[in-house]
């Protein structure tokens, strides 16, 4: 019942639509896209489990404003990132920079995979070299007896 009423109202409103195309919320949408793309890779320092793009914390807003200003002034992504890292350290980056202390982090997965495959190949090859188990005559006799006895369980 309520749904029918809603659709009716909806149809009436649709018929009377006179509004304009909405303006983008941001003053400069192209710049905003770039700001948000970078902010998605930065960590909010207050709500530490949100990106700078998503956080509603006042500091996050301030930092987004700073990022926007710097980008508008022509700074590159790299320069903006450096600005933030200078003040807050690597903690603010969700994509850890590649340095001596993070080599293990970035190459670890590949190393794990390679190590896993190396071990696997070695074992498979060893197994093959050790050969199939010998079937002894006693085994053959026992097999024959079992087969002859018939009744499967």
């Amino acid at each position, binding site marked *: 019942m309520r749904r029918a009423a809603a659709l009716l109202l909806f149809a009436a409103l649709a018929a009377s639509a006179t509004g304009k195309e909405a303006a983008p919320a941001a003053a400069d949408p192209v710049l905003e896209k770039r700001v948000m793309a970078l902010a998605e890779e930065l960590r909010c*320092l207050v709500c530490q489990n949100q990106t700078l793009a998503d956080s509603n914390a006042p500091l996050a807003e301030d930092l987004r404003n700073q990022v926007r200003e710097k980008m508008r002034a022509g700074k590159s992504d790299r320069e903006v990132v450096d600005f933030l890292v*200078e003040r807050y350290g690597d903690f603010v980056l969700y994509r850890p920079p590649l340095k001596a202390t993070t080599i293990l982090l970035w190459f670890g997965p590949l190393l794990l995979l390679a190590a896993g495959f190396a071990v696997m190949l070695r074992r498979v090859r060893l197994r093959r070299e050790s050969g199939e188990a010998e079937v002894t005559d006693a085994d053959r006799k026992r097999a024959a007896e079992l087969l002859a006895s018939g009744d499967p369980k």
Partner: protein
Amino acid sequence: MTRFAIPIAIFVALLALLGIGLKLDPREVPSPLIGKPAPHFELPELHQAARTFSERDMLGKVWVLNVWASWCVSCREEHPVLLDLAASGAVPVYGLNYKDRREDGLAWLKGMGDPYKISIFDFDGRVGIDYGVYGVPETYVIDKSGIIRYKRIGPLTPEIVKEKLLPLVRELDRA
């Protein structure tokens, strides 16, 4: 064979890591500014808007910069400690009023007591960002050459003042 012992070896290392982790605070963001020059600023004073203050004014002296705000609950906790520190005369204490309204900041100091030689008014928080402030209160110790030597994140306690801050100030004074 030794390869069967690899899992437990890794596990023991993991346990050790997690055990250490229990004592650490994952939320704390250490400052990359320790050992670096205090970022430059020139801001109006809280009490006298016409006058400005800069960190350059403090060259040649060891000083403490405390970031506070009237809306900050933990700042109330540490305020008595700051008052004591200022009264002891061991080191001058300067305040950075962060993202506050002038009237609120002045009223707060009037009510709680003013330990600061001068309070600087950082309305939009930009200087705070330059100093890597992400929560209030935070406290810095800056040496005679204007280099940041120590940062305390969170309220000051008497233990921290006694065990970390004052010894450091004494050491820097001698230099």
